[in-house]
């Protein structure tokens, strides 16, 4: 039964990673850049929700929506001001700019909200369901997290497959030049991708802090790195890959903590990643592109 408990908390953590990984993977798929500031957008989302709920006593759902709005605008603003001027620049320059944005967000948060840890109130309460005479406990946060992940996945799959904007996104990730020739507004599409990714980051931030309630300006960095790993794990650029990578990473992390060692859990996670990449160099669901001469 403890195994099942660990599995469920692993899936819950993995769902959060998956939602964050979606932001990385979509942006990578379209703009071909590693957006290192994504982890910090999570943190901003969590802070917005925290203040909305605890200071202005808005209902939790309104807090989440507000956080999503702020993060969406923030994501689009960052893209417009920092990344768009560098569209033609070498990818390393964009990477360093993303790191600059990450520092900027962290330090702004530090100035606005101080480094004192905030205790994040769970947006869905602290209730839990007990099964099998109390042997199996599932908290409400876990259920909401997993449900949110499933809904987001279904919605995104539908969105990219059926809407005009979604199709434009896929076209841009395939070939930007050809997409432009077909009359697709590439800049608007990229902007939209950042908006969606950042909005999802806000949800991930709220869920993350509901499960692990300490909120500091650097809250987003480690989950950010892990989710980035998850995106690569599943094959960066692939939406189902982000889900698979996120879930696996979460489960492996919790199992490593439970059965191997708490301190070495990160090492185990990254070791698994390395082994997977050696066997499948483009990730689990990534497309292996053969180079032509």
């Amino acid at each position, binding site marked *: 039964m403890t195994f099942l408990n660990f599995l469920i908390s692993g899936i819950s953590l993995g769902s959060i990673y998956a939602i964050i990984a979606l932001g990385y993977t979509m942006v990578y798929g379209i703009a071909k850049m590693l957006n290192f500031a994504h982890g910090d957008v999570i943190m901003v989302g969590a802070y917005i929700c925290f203040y909305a709920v605890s200071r202005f006593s808005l209902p939790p759902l309104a807090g989440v929506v507000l956080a999503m709005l702020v993060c969406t605008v923030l994501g689009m603003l960052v893209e417009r001001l920092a990344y768009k001027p560098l569209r033609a620049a070498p990818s390393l320059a964009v990477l*360093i700019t993303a*790191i600059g944005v990450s520092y900027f967000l962290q330090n702004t948060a530090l100035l606005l909200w101080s480094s004192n840890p905030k205790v994040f109130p769970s947006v869905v309460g602290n209730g839990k369901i007990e099964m099998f005479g109390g042997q199996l406990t599932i908290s409400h946060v876990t259920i909401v997290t997993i449900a949110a992940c499933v809904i987001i996945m279904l919605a995104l799959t539908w969105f990219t497959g059926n809407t005009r904007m979604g199709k434009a996104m896929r076209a841009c990730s395939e070939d930007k030049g050809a997409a432009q020739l077909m009359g697709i507004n590439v800049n608007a599409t990229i902007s939209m991708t950042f908006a969606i990714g950042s909005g999802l980051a806000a949800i991930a931030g709220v869920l993350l802090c509901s499960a692990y309630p300490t909120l500091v300006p650097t809250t987003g960095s480690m989950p950010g790195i892990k989710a*980035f790993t998850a995106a690569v794990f599943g094959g960066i650029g692939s939406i189902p890959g982000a889900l698979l990578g996120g879930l696996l990473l979460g489960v492996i992390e919790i199992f490593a903590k439970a059965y191997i060692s708490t301190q070495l859990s990160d090492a185990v996670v990254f070791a698994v990643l390395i082994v997977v990449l050696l066997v499948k160099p483009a990730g689990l669901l990534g497309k292996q592109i053969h180079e032509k001469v």
Partner: protein
Amino acid sequence: MKLKLNKTTRKNFATYGVVILAYVLLQVMKGSLSSSLKGMLVPICAYVVMAISLNLTVGILGELSLGHAGFMSVGAFTGVTAAIALQNVIPAAPLRLAVGLAVGAAFAGIAGFLIGIPVLRLNGDYLAIVTLAFGEIIKSIFNNLYVGIDKNGMQFSLLSDKTNLAEGGKLIIEGPMGIGGIQKISTFTAGFILVMITLIIVFNLVNSRAGRAIMAIRDNHIAAESIGLHVTHYKMMAFVTSAALAGAAGTLFAMNYSTIMANKFDFNTSILVLVFVVLGGQGNMLGSIVAAAALTVLPEMLRTFADYRMLVYAIVLILVMLTTNNATLRSWFSRFSLKNREKEAA
């Protein structure tokens, strides 16, 4: 007799010259430097070496490494451990430091070789993420490693202190506490010498047959392979050299502080060094040196901004990247440069 030097040689000598000049100037001004700046001289040297060594991987080999701090960590821990273990055998501090640097470089080189075997099979962003993963693994291992020394030799244990040292034994690496009680034997002169050695190694590698092969692989690995270059061999050569130099930098860095912890060498440190390399220009060693020195001093210079200094640092970083890489801004700036005006006049 007029000495005719080619462009590369002149550029390399200019780089040596700048470093020597900076060293001499700082030695002369030493009395008038503020104490905080004086304390930063050794870290600056360490970061300069880090930047040059990462530039070898990123600029010359053309592979993005996000785990360079891992090699620094390996160098720091092994080098300092060696120096502490040999405290009674080698009483002369400079010699002990040299041995520490050599041990740190050797172990980091070995780590680079072991990591290079899987890493160099991948390419692009996948390679970058695996180096990131190795950096995190190295951090986790040093956070849980316990090393002690007693009359029976070195004792190792992982996760918790099970070294069971004999009477008179001494615990050197204490897991998450790192190494404490380090004798601060790093000096600015030692740092300067290490920078010079690093430059000599890197320039000689780059301007050799092997260096040209490495750059050929960077530019087009398929073409390089088809003319008979052993891609993995040359990639490994650059990667291991880079790792070993980073290890030496780590030892130098660690010997400047009384305690050193594994968490000091995390992802952020790797990124910091990468920022030096990209700002200084990929493949441009002098640029790396200047960027590393300037950006290490910058937060110190920004002290007047107090709480805002890291914010200002971030904004400066973004603005520099935008101005140097955006085509529109670049052409706007070039209107003011003298060279272009002459061109227009002619």
